[in-house]
């Protein structure tokens, strides 16, 4: 799939929310390929954005297009090219994984025999050939999630939306799912929301950071990093003496001290800590740091109210 995902002043005010903006004039343009990962705190608006783009929810105002197709005006055209796993999607307990994938494909317009073949293939790809005919209600939570991922894998749609597909999975299963998501994204555009920053870091070509209905930062990990004033992060134990420095020292989220600084200063400080025998670690700023920078800046701005 070529083209771009473009949003222009996309705004959503739910009827029942007394004017509160769940999405507040979101504008963006990103290539419609690879993985776009949306991160943000609970209630930031990730699901709202995904549901609007996936033609499930009407925006209050603004426009969005995917590969030039308007999500509102040309929903019908778009719907044959997208596949979705909603945030709270669950497998129907009285069906088997095979039946689940099969019926989904039939709704997507495949014939019965075509669907059957694709279902077997997709369930095999997620390693569920053995459980294909077991009732969903007898599968573990992780396996149920794999069934849903198999539906999207089988759909082979130009654009797939997965809203928190790995929430609640153990670290091994999560990594296993990443493999399938990468597989989808090799050919198609995948929009993925997650609360696991390492997941976004690992999979995303473009990361969108959302906060209270706004897209506060969007770009590749590299470009988000370079939008920060400081590129390096040094961590010290709580007991360490913090010297005079060019940068900022804050209480780290791990209880120690975190210094954010530039490359030269990081080098100088490293020499200093080595000389004085202080334990420390130095890294490029992570997505965690970027995320907290954007979200915290925003909290700082509004928090005083």
């Amino acid at each position, binding site marked *: 799939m070529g083209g771009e995902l473009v949003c222009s002043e996309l705004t959503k005010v739910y009827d029942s929310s007394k004017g509160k903006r769940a999405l507040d004039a979101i504008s963006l343009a990103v290539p419609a390929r690879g993985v776009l990962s949306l991160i943000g705190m609970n209630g930031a608006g990730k699901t709202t954005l995904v549901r609007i783009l996936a033609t499930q929810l009407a925006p209050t105002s603004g426009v969005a297009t995917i590969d030039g197709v308007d999500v509102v005006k040309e929903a019908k055209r778009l719907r044959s090219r997208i596949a979705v796993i909603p945030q709270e*999607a669950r497998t129907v307990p*009285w069906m088997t994984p095979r039946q689940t994938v099969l019926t989904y494909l039939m709704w997507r317009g495949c014939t019965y025999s075509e669907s059957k073949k694709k279902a077997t293939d997709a369930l095999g790809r997620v390693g569920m050939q053995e459980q294909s005919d077991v009732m969903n209600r007898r599968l573990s939570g992780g396996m149920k999630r794999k069934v849903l991922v198999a539906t999207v894998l089988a759909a082979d749609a130009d654009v797939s939306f997965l809203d928190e597909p790995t929430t609640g999975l153990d670290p091994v299963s999560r990594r296993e799912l990443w493999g399938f998501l990468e597989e989808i994204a090799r050919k198609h555009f995948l929009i993925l929301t997650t609360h696991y920053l390492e997941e976004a870091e690992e999979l995303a070509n473009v990361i969108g950071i959302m906060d209270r209905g706004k897209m506060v930062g969007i770009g590749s990990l590299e470009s988000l990093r370079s939008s920060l004033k400081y590129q390096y992060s040094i961590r010290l134990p709580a007991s360490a003496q913090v010297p005079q420095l060019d940068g900022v020292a804050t209480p780290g989220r791990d209880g120690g001290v975190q210094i954010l600084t530039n490359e030269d200063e990081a080098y100088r400080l490293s020499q200093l800590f080595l000389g004085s025998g202080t334990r420390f670690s130095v890294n490029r700023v992570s997505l965690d740091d970027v995320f907290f920078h954007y979200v915290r800046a925003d909290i700082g701005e509004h928090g005083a109210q």
Partner: protein
Amino acid sequence: MKSRFFGQVTAAVLVNSLYEMRNYPVVLVNTVLSPLSFLLVIAFVSKGGLIGDAIEGGFIMSMFSSGVSLQGDLSHLKNDFKLQDMVVASPTSPFTYVTGMALAELVYSIPALAVLTVLAWIFIHPSAVQALVLVGVMLMMFLSSIAIGFTLATFSSDIVQSFAFSRLISTLFSTLPPVYYPVTYIPLPFRYAAYLSPTTYAAVISQNATGFLSEPGASIAIDWGIMIAVTVVLFLVAAKKARWREV
């Protein structure tokens, strides 16, 4: 395009009845028993005098209950599994989805309809024309109930609400109105209230067709007119008000 429609409808029938039935045969027992239970009560209380009316009532109720079940099933699949969200974002249109889901409800009614058909054969012996009238009435009931069921389902956001909707439609349209006995049994001022329900017209038309009631032809024509008009209006409301893409 045509085969795609057929496949999409089949998917709904599979999910909403064939697969489900295999797991929960008790649902099937319920759909057979509930129209028959009223029938038995009325037949016994009337010492057999109203058995013909009651059988026709059974037909009307099993058709009408399709919409009630449809409302519950659609809400369940939408709210608890987010299945409808997945279908909305697919090439399946709301019309196709609902057609499939409604046919699935009809599949559930087959055993009850079979029992009723046998009873009708024994106790009513309808002529071909009478049978045709009954089938026409049943079709109208089916269509209007699914229009109500679909519209309400798109507004329900959880199981408690959907359960309340189900009870409400079934009480208002099939328990309260004179479906199993002649409308003339209802004292006059209340009789007007009965005419607020489309099922009353269905019962009057059926009973009149098989000679359990004798209404003037003009009045029956009006009843048909109202029943068809109500069905059309309910469909228009469903098409206009039902929420496929949420707002």
